[in-house]
């Protein structure tokens, strides 16, 4: 019995060792994910590999995981950014492969993958200069967002989706003598926070010059005739 047990143990060990000899221990592949939003580390980004959540990035935007599997396998990767940020689509799959540094001594343990989660909305800072005319409302979709100050400038900011448009109107209805009346400006938001400068020239309308027409009666006055 003892011999059998011993033989079994030897067999198991040999099996284990033979396995090691054939394929070695199951290799592990460390990965480091670093998530950013406009270059700033982003916390709370969820990393999913082959449908299994691996974890979320910490306050430094980093998540370290170790994957196992056959060498060369491709693992589908999914990234979910937190609310307010856009999740990148079409992530390249993770390739399980041993990492060998080209320069000795600089070997890193993990393959690093950068994740970018740009904000869902961008901020537009708008500067309006209205030729020094004070107290003119600036409206968006009919709603007043700001008025020009005593020196005729107005500042406001608003979130806007990338590629979104915004139409501003300087409401001059309180100053009918200004030209042009209610001028419009349209801003188009790039995929970054941006400053928009609107330098609207407003002028006082000139007094209309009316053509003087001398009215003449159809027939002249009856003149006395000399008899």
């Amino acid at each position: 019995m003892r011999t059998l047990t011993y033989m079994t143990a030897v067999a198991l060990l040999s099996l284990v060792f033979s396995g090691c000899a054939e394929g070695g221990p199951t290799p592990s592949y460390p990965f480091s994910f670093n998530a950013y939003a406009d270059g700033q580390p982003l916390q709370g980004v969820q990393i999913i590999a082959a449908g299994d959540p691996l974890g979320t990035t910490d306050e430094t935007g980093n998540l370290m995981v170790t994957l196992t599997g056959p060498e060369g396998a491709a693992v589908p990767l999914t990234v979910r950014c937190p609310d307010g940020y856009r999740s990148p689509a079409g992530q390249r799959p993770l390739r399980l492969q041993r990492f060998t540094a080209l320069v000795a001594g600089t070997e890193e343990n993990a393959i690093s993958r950068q994740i970018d989660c740009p904000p869902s909305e961008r901020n537009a800072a708008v500067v309006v200069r209205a030729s020094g005319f004070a107290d003119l409302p600036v409206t968006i979709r009919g709603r007043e967002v700001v008025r020009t100050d005593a020196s005729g400038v107005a500042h406001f900011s608003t979130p806007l989706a990338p590629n979104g448009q915004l139409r501003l109107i300087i409401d001059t209805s309180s100053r009918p003598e200004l030209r042009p009346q209610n001028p419009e400006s349209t801003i188009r938001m790039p995929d970054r926070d941006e400053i928009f400068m609107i330098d609207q020239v407003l002028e006082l309308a000139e007094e209309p010059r009316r053509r003087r027409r001398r009215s003449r009666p159809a027939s002249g006055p009856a003149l006395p005739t000399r008899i």
Partner: protein
Amino acid sequence: MKPTRIRLIAGQSSGREWVASDAPSGSRVDVGNSENASWKVSAPGVKGLHLQLYWDGTRLWVADLHNAGGVGMGGALIRDWTALDNGSRITFGSAALQVEAPDATDIAPPAQHAKKSGRPSSPDRSALRGIPTQVAAEAAAQPQSTKLTSLDGVPKGSPDSAPTPPPVIGAGVERISNPNTKSASPSAAPRFAPPPPEGEAGSKDDENSKASTRTRILGGTLLIAAVAVLLMPGPEPQNTVAPTSESTAPAALPAPNYEAQIRPIQPTVPTPEELSEGALTPARQAADALLGGRTWEAADRYAGLSEQDPANSTYRLLSRLLARELRLRCQDDPDAYGDRCAR
């Protein structure tokens, strides 16, 4: 009248002097070692846009462009627009300019000019005479292309292939349109022969002379009438609305679509007359700096506004975005902005 000119007496430049009196009233010339400067001067300590010269038609003025590196005159740094007299010597970095204004005693006080000239208008690229002499000669030989300017007026898209970039024509040079300079020529007015003395009437020559005079008067009158008819305004364009009665609201105009535009910006500082217009709100000063392409000044002003009003998210955003812009510039070309990038 001898010309008023300003000569470069220390420093390297392709232009050695600017004859200001040949330039239109209201001309500005930015001086510095930047390609964006109207008058590029290279010397140790000279900043990209270091100072600005302003010709008001009678007198030269100088201003430090936002304390770029200090502008000295008479042993002291100038802090505001400073009038230049004959022999005035301006030092900036290791470069120096000297004014030759022989008729400086005849100049009018700037306040009078302020009313006459008004606010500077948009840059006038035709003001080639506002460019230092040799540069002007080069400029005349160069095709003038439209320059796109970035936030601070730094030209974009300039050809890199040219071995020596053409001078920036008219950058920072603005002209004030001065209607007073267009004086009506007296010869242009119709002339009539004086009527002959009464005692000489009666002869046939006199009769002919009278008839000729009448013909001339009649012709002149008809001419004046014809000119008057031509000058009468035609019917109002359809897209304008004549003012209605005071009790009624103005009719809605078909709203023109003014696309938001990042305006081409010229680096500029307020003219003496602008400074005398009175205090502007800090927000206006910041906006003027931004719209005027004075990004460093704008960043400082918005940072100050943000500190004064921490709850104002717009000022905070503007301050942050301007800081980002300046960081990028410093990364691109740290030498162009001197010690500002070290801040």
